């Protein structure tokens, strides 16, 4: 199943897929579109991916997580396309025998996704249209839209 989805994500169904009979702890991270960023209003976001590379990079992240967190199983999905405030952008579900490993694997998953997967988001709101950059940097390209 592809990691990128143009359709809405269902966090609970991913939890249902990731859990195994031997697992006593399930951890779920859900990233949603916020209504503000750095003090200005956000109406919607458009997520763009370098699709073929993003899919491959997420396979590599899965492989790395299986190695770094061998007791856990981690699944994740990322949305692309136009998202409104409150929409789910990313889901990471982790399952492990105990909570510490489930939390750790889930955290490692979202951090790897944010650092490594070639996905970008363009924010539309009170500041016009802006490509969002990590660490609070943004290259402003004001447009009337």
């Amino acid at each position, binding site marked *: 199943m592809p990691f990128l989805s143009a359709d809405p994500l269902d966090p609970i169904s991913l939890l249902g897929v990731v859990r195994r009979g031997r697992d006593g702890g399930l951890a779920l991270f859900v*990233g949603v579109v916020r209504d503000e960023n750095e003090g200005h209003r956000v109406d919607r976001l458009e*997520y*763009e*991916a*370098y699709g*073929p*590379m993003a899919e*491959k*990079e997420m396979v*590599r992240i899965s492989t790395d997580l299986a190695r770094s967190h061998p007791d856990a199983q981690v699944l994740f999905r*990322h949305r692309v396309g136009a998202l409104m405030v409150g929409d789910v*952008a*990313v889901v990471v579900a982790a399952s492990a025998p105990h909570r510490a490993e489930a939390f750790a694997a889930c955290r490692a998953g*979202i951090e790897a*996704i*944010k*650092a*490594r*997967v*070639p*996905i*970008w*988001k*363009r924010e539309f709101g009170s500041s016009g249209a802006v*490509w*969002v*950059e*990590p660490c609070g*940097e943004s*290259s402003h*390209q004001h447009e009337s839209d």
Partner: protein
Amino acid sequence: MKVEVLLFASLRDAVGRTIAVEVPEPATVTSLRRALEAAHPAIARFGTRAKLAVNEAWAGETDPVSPGDTVALLPPVAGG
């Protein structure tokens, strides 16, 4: 050799969907980066914040770039 480079997000808006540059062989990520920066001031402004991917994987600065490789120049990623 001529290398065609895919661009995404803010880099695509600034420069275009693809660009082609001439790079002496044997080429590396660094020599390709220099050629791209010389050809397009918008790319030079990104500096090393723009990362190169070769064959759909992140590439290091000393990695080779060979004829026929799929090459992309990517602005800082912002998923999640």
